[in-house]
């Protein structure tokens, strides 16, 4: 149940992987659609926190090309645009596949909708 909303927030957190660790590349994914409650306030508040190009790219990969290339403006976005954003962010669930870090090539497998984010001992960041 990784939604694109969470995918857009995720970066690789293995040791020494601090640059070029976002966005995680989606591979061999299968998706499921599930309806979610629409909240305009949440979307308008959330737009500034999104990495827009990464979102558009991931959405295209999953076959959703309703998003414009340019980031929406939270103040002026129309309801239609927000509905499209809502669908992409919250209703598209990745069920199977994997996410791969573009920097260190670490593979985070997704099975049954749950990504496995566990790291091995040697990948733990030094604290």
């Amino acid at each position, binding site marked *: *149940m*990784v*939604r694109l*909303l*969470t995918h857009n*927030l*995720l*970066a*690789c*957190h293995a040791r020494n992987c601090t640059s070029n660790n*976002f966005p995680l590349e989606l591979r061999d994914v299968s998706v499921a659609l599930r309806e*979610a*409650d629409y*909240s305009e*306030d*949440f979307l308008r*508040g*959330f737009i500034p*926190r999104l*990495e827009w190009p990464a979102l558009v790219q991931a959405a295209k990969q999953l076959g959703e090309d309703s998003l414009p290339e340019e980031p929406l403006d939270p103040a002026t976005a129309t309801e239609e645009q927000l509905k499209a954003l809502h669908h992409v962010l*919250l209703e598209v669930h990745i069920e199977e596949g994997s996410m791969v870090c573009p920097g260190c090539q670490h593979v985070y497998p997704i099975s*049954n*909708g*749950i*990504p*496995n*984010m*566990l*790291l091995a*001992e040697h990948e*733990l*960041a*030094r*604290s």
Partner: protein
Amino acid sequence: MSRPELQAPPEIYYGDSVAKKYTTNTRVQRIQAEMTNRALELLALPPDGAPSLLLDIGCGSGLSGEILDELGHIWVGMDVAPSMLEIALEREVEGDLFLHDIGQGFGFRPGTFDGAISISVIQWLLNAETSSPLSAPPARLSRFFRTLHALLRNPSRAVLQFYPSSDDQIALVTSAARKAGFGGGVVVDFPNSKKARKVFLCLMVGEQSMPKGKDGVEGEIADEEAADARFEKRRQRLKERKGKKRNIKDRDWIIKKKEKYRTKGKEGVPRDSKYTGRKRKAAF
């Protein structure tokens, strides 16, 4: 029984059968719900009621997530026990679930979450499972708090309820949180009750004022909320009574016992005298 975190690592302790028991137990459900509601109260989200993006650390089978769903929040949950997550999937909670060990740190972009809650989890970070210094409790705590601090927005809060086994553990956890840059501290509800006492680590990003713990003394506690603290007085009294046990082996008891032996015809029963049943002088 000893504390669960001393028995096995969480991913093993919460195996299939325990996970099922835990989730279907109505008492656990009620306590978890109470603590989640209290944690949300301490979280003090903006009052306009717009949905927020929350992180549920150690979401387990989604008992706390269900409450977040009801309030319309969007949440991301993580847990290290696959059996618990499986049950969460069966229960069809709305949030995104991750299999993740929180002691390894989070991999979220900075400044993305409106808040974080965690119910009965942090005590699991305080046990070392391997001898490697990277998985020692201080290292795990430090990674956890540093990445948590990074992923929260400014201003926002993280409310973490946990069961410390000693004051030292509270000190260890709070100092790790301070080092990561958090403000805030520990809020204790019902501090005088052994059973209802709940410790919330209330961490703040940015400058905020500290909430107060609920107090349950002098029987002022009004409603159900304080159900756990209700019989505290009585329990205290019973305990005191039990402590002062009367010494039953006094002079009368010894004389009665000797009489009994004599009537039974036992040999060598000492004579009764004025010294019977008297305490000896101290040796020095």
